[in-house]
């Protein structure tokens, strides 16, 4: 064995080596990559390409037929899609800013505290995030219960009549939005805390010498330096919010009527209740482009709007 010669491989090579010899030389690297690559190709890459193909087909059990843009036309002509889009959009537009801003406020309140209180509150706000949305949705449905729910009981203190939160179309979507706002954005709080920790103390000291008070420091130093985190969190929660599903199926099933229908719930219904695979594929491709569009817009606005 001559290990020394093996390590200096850049000395002799002049002519371009053939593909085969390249593969041979890097065989260990490819072998290390192989398991992930196979899984990735089989269960992600092929399904993604397949989804695009399916969206142009009419699905039939024995051989699907090419349908051109029919599925997309159907998507954009169906009222259900626009209702789902509108609901999802409203849900996102209210909850994302609320969640990100409240995460920022909570993190700012926690940050100056001592180590022990810091980790206590961090845990208190992150704990709801580790419990499954299925569980959260089940208990919120119970808390929203018209006769025995805790919310109507609390409203009763102020003399407000009981509300059938989830059972009427005027309030169902708002009930879900309020719920999303009141579930703390644990990821956001922890990320903000970490970013605040990485801001140099000397900046604050300089500002103190210049006579800045706490709020001024927060506005002029903390806030601008948290911008990358804010961008990341807004993107993250927008993407998550466009995919809202679990609450819907566990709490309202999209109803009453279609008052709480959302895009992913619609895709689920189209694909796995009605078995219209082509149409469901087209809906999911549209969802993908909507999310992409929003990501690009947010990236631009938050990044370059200095």
């Amino acid at each position, binding site marked *: 064995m001559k290990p020394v010669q093996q390590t200096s491989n850049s000395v002799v090579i002049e002519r371009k080596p053939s593909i085969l010899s390249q593969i041979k030389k890097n065989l260990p690297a490819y072998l290390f990559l192989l398991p992930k690559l196979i899984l990735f190709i089989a269960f992600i890459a092929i399904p993604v390409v397949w989804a695009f193909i399916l969206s142009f087909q009419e699905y039939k059990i024995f051989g699907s037929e090419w349908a051109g843009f029919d599925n997309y036309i159907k998507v954009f002509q169906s009222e259900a899609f626009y209702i789902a889009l509108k609901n999802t959009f409203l849900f996102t537009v209210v909850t994302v800013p609320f969640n990100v801003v409240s995460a920022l406020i909570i993190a700012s309140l926690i940050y100056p505290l001592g180590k022990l209180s810091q980790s206590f*509150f961090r845990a208190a706000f992150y704990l709801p995030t580790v419990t499954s949305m299925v569980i959260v949705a089940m208990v919120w449905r119970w808390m929203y219960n018209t006769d025995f729910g805790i919310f109507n009981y609390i409203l009763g203190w102020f003399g407000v009549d009981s509300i059938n939160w989830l059972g009427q179309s005027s309030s169902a979507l708002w009930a879900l939005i309020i719920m999303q706002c009141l579930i703390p954005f644990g990821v956001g709080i922890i990320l903000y805390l*970490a970013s605040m920790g990485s801001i140099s103390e000397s900046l604050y000291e300089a500002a103190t010498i210049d006579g800045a008070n706490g709020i001024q420091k927060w506005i002029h130093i903390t806030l601008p330096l948290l911008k990358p985190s804010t961008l990341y969190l807004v993107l993250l929660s927008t993407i998550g919010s466009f995919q809202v599903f679990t609450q819907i199926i566990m709490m309202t099933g999209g109803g009453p009527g279609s008052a709480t229908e959302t895009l992913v719930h619609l895709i689920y219904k189209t694909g796995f209740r009605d078995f219209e695979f082509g149409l469901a594929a087209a809906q999911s491709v549209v969802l993908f482009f909507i999310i992409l569009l929003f990501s690009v817009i947010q990236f631009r606005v938050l990044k370059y709007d200095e």
Partner: protein
Amino acid sequence: MQNSRSIQKLNKTIIYLLLGVFSIVSLLPLYWVFSTSMQLSKYQDEELERPVSYVDSNPPKMYPMGIPEYFEHWGKAREADKNGDTKEEAYHREVMDNIVSDTFSGFTTLFQKNNIGRWFLNSAYIAVVVTIGILLIDSMAGYVLAKKQFPGRNIIFWAIIATMMIPGQVTLVPLFMMVKNLGIMDTHWALIFPDLAMVFGVFLMRQFMYSIPDELLDAAKIDGASEWKTYWKIVLPLARPGLAALGIFTFMSVWNSFLWPIIVLNDANLYTLPVGLKSLQDANLASFKLLMSGAAIAAVPMIIVFIMFQRHFIKGLTLGGVKE
């Protein structure tokens, strides 16, 4: 001076007050799960003729009513014991037993009649298999993507990153057809394989492996260590904090995963906990005590994992997002 210090003290009080209120709001739903799961549901009150339920009561009871009732009868039983009234004492002891069994009746029903033990094991089995698989496969991939030069490296990396942008719902229908064609519909493999393909870990591992010094790897090579040995004996131990974070996140996302499992699982014996909870809710819309007992059983493992590994949770979150 005195003035500004008292202002500071006031500020601190306000901060604690605000955070206290916020964290009550944050933790109330979880508290409500546990409280309702242990609420008395068919309590035989002494004054009332019929059994009462504190689950469906207005105003709602803020804590398991079994606790005060239990201690009340405990006190009475002791008093009766002191007075030498054995009959009275036996009565109160019996009521206490009834209170205990009523308090935990949701759990016992779930284990005896609803197979929840099976669902629990299914969830645990799938989460463990996927987590171990992901840790191995993703650390191998992340290692070579970070530390080796070979043709196609960048293409592979960017292909993987690009798919992180694509929402999972896009692949639902094709995956469903694929799983059907493979003949693994309604089996746990239908959950395990797509989960093992998740790409987030490759990205995380690659970021983490960058910080491993090249000199260490070169030294191992000079000592004649094989590629596998280098990876197993040097790279993996150095990557332990990253592996811990990835492991916890994988476990959590598999344990809580819902949309795909409700599509591919039909056999109630194969359900994972979230799917089981949904079936429970579909079948027992009215029995909130039972539902909350199921929710509590599903929530406890993640709460324990979180409390035990809080440090790694935070590490994993910040690795994914703060850098740059």
